[in-house]
């Protein structure tokens, strides 16, 4: 009896090793913290939509790569006219949508015209604002004419909001997304999971994985046992505070990268006393970024001195502009006539970086005489009161859109900041495509924001990924919200 058992165990073991040696795994379960409201990236801003569909289900003319670079996607190449206003895209041929219909230049025209139409509810409509007209030259060539040269046009076309959809399925993509990508949508069990399977007739290099399930795990405490039990093999966006529980386990890889999320202490620039430059500068001197990063994000995340990710190619290091200096902060407050300090409110949205960071910011500002009343708010409340109605003093939030320094030039944006010199730089940037000049303009823009101490620049939100050590090809950074699975595979 005992011998039988041993033999059986040995046989099972041998079989298990043999199969794994012959073929690597081709299935994957990924944990995501938030369920997408729907699956159409052209009709909603939620990052969760892109974390499922970007590069997997939907593709654009161009795409953004793991290090923020612009790569060709459905357009295999393009030419730009000398005046920078006409882009001619040469499209891949033999491309099919998942429903079997053919992809052609007509779909490109349809998608771009749909996104910029009057009644469009595309969440990033400004990406298409410079487009004057879209012409189909032949089934494999499309010509986009802009009203003015736009340096960021090819980058813009790589956003999830600019993916190419088919007129047949455009209205049903929310529930049943149909794209041209290497994975096709299979099933969505609401509240539970979304399943993608490999597309049979993909035009490009086929994916390694056969089946991917995105499982929704809202609670960070549940993520650790889900990894340990092997139920879920990857959490590309893991809670920084839980990292210590898995970082010494050789079965897992912990990968800390950068996002495009500038975490800032937003200041209402029109509301006294924050309309005084000295007061805003005093706040900047009062902040100790190291302590905030340690407390709010487990020591992960890089300090920033202006509104630009350190991973971005246009980044200029301005973290030395306002070193942590309590005496200097008090002096500036005195200059502003506030030597006795003052009271203000700090509204905190529900994210943990805001709630944890808020406590630390409040204590740091108390050291220079600014007493903050902390008001926790829901996300919907924050959007309504702070963002839309601008009824706030201070708040903490992460601006996660890539390359979004232009928000400081927007009219009526919730910072209530208006500097003609800065607006001019942003307007020039829009019209400049020369890389060297763009770099210089971006540097100027960052410097103006730092000098004006428009907001308290805190740190770049880290992207903490934890996954099975045998899994390869997931992104380290998050230049845009995505879980690109096109190159993901299991090593043997």
């Amino acid at each position: 009896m005992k011998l039988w058992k041993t033999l059986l165990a040995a046989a099972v073991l041998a079989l298990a090793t043999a199969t794994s040696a012959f073929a690597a795994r081709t299935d994957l379960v990924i944990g995501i913290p938030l369920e997408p409201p729907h699956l159409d990236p052209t009709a909603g801003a939620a990052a969760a939509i892109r974390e499922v569909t970007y590069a997997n289900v939907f593709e654009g003319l161009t795409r953004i790569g793991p290090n923020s670079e612009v790569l060709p996607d459905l357009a295999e190449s393009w030419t730009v006219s000398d005046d920078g206003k006409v882009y001619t895209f040469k499209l891949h041929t033999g491309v099919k949508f998942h429903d079997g219909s053919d992809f052609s230049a007509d779909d490109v025209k349809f998608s771009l015209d749909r996104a910029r139409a009057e009644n469009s509810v595309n969440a990033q409509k400004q990406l298409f604002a410079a487009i004057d007209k879209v012409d189909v030259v032949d089934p494999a060539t499309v010509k986009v004419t802009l009203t003015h040269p736009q340096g960021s046009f090819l980058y813009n076309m790589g956003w999830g909001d600019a993916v190419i959809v088919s007129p047949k399925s455009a209205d049903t993509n929310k529930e049943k997304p149909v794209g041209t990508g290497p994975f096709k949508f299979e099933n969505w069990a609401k509240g539970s999971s979304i399943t993608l399977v490999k597309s049979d007739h993909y035009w490009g290099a086929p994916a390694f994985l056969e089946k991917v399930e995105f499982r929704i795990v809202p609670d960070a405490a549940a993520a650790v046992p889900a990894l340990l039990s092997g139920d879920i093999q990857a959490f590309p966006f893991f809670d920084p505070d839980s990292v210590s529980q898995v970082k010494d386990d050789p079965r897992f890889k912990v990968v800390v990268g950068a996002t495009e999320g500038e975490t800032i202490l937003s200041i209402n620039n029109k509301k006294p006393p924050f309309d005084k430059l000295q007061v805003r500068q005093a706040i900047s001197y009062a902040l100790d970024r190291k302590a905030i990063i340690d407390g709010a994000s487990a020591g992960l995340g890089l300090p920033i001195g202006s509104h630009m990710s350190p991973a971005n190619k246009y980044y200029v290091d301005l973290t030395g502009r306002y070193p942590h200096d309590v005496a200097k902060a008090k002096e500036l407050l005195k200059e502003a006539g506030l030597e006795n300090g003052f009271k203000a409110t700090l509204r905190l949205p529900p994210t943990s970086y805001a709630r944890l960071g808020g406590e630390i910011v409040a204590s740091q500002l108390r050291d220079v005489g600014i007493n903050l009343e902390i008001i926790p708010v829901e996300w919907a409340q924050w959007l309504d009161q702070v963002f839309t109605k601008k009824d706030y003093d201070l708040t903490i939030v992460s601006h996660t859109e890539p390359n979004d320094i232009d928000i400081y030039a927007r009219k009526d944006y919730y910072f209530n900041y208006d500097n003609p010199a800065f607006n001019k730089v942003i307007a020039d940037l829009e019209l400049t495509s020369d890389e060297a000049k763009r770099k210089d303009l971006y540097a100027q823009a960052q410097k103006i924001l730092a000098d004006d101490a428009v907001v308290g620049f805190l740190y770049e939100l880290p992207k903490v990924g934890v996954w099975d050590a045998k899994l390869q090809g997931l992104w380290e950074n998050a230049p845009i919200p995505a879980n690109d699975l096109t190159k993901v595979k299991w090593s043997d």
Partner: protein
Amino acid sequence: MTTYLLKRLAISLATLVLASIVVFAVLEILPGDPARLMLGMNASADQVELLRNQMGLNAPLALRYLHWASGLLSLDFGRSYTYSVPVIDLVRERLAVSLPLALIALALSTIIAIPVGLFSASRRGRAGDTISMGAAQLGVAVPNFWFALMLIYIFAVWLRLVPAGGFPGWSAGVWPALKSLLLPAIALALPQAAILARVTRSALIEVLNDDYIRTARAKGLPYRAVLWRHALRNAMIPVLTILGLQFAFLLAGTIIIENVFYLPGLGRLVFQAITQRDLIVVESVVMLLVAAVIAVNLIVDLSYAVVDPRLRSRQ
């Protein structure tokens, strides 16, 4: 009995109408715009307005209430703002998880609590009573998310008997689906059982002091027969009341356990809908729950009459 029933039904109906007005009004006052939530921080005010129109959010309040309430009458709960599917489909999917979960938890809690309560009451003041009531105290005090995590670490991570969370759906088979509900049901049942055991015990002790128990004992009935046949039956009324309350709670108040086990239950649907200002979903689900609570109360009231014949004649 018939007039009693009719009266109860009329009261229930009035409660439903009143609840619908309160629920609708409260949620509409809540700050936050579902259209802005959908479009995020980069969309212009004009675009948000456009989407508000498309979602029908700009119609007058009273009109929207009437539209919604008349829909409810014909069991049309409207369409979710965020998911853009009928609310009833969402609820049906979630009930497939929440209802079995609540029933299993309730059964577990009853199976544990009644014997423990009986045992404790019959050994009042002795060591057995102290130990079981101490355990019940612990059961009430232990936070159930912590208890749930401990269950996960032992049975899912260490022993690998059940999955750590998630729900495969009933289409994956009855056993896999049941297996994934087992740990959450235990985590939910424990504090409920603890409360129920204490209620059973005190109800029994009260009854056991009554004269007729002494009479029954005096006429020579064995203690066990007295306990089961005479005492327990009379102690059932508070126990049934608590059970009714617990069922209503288990149906939608299990958000913490649903989060720990990432189960797609009704509690999480409501929670998510609140944060996304998917008001139509919140309003409709809350109304369904109000209806469920009223129905459960009605059933509990009627079951009093079943366990206690004296109540039948009084009505």
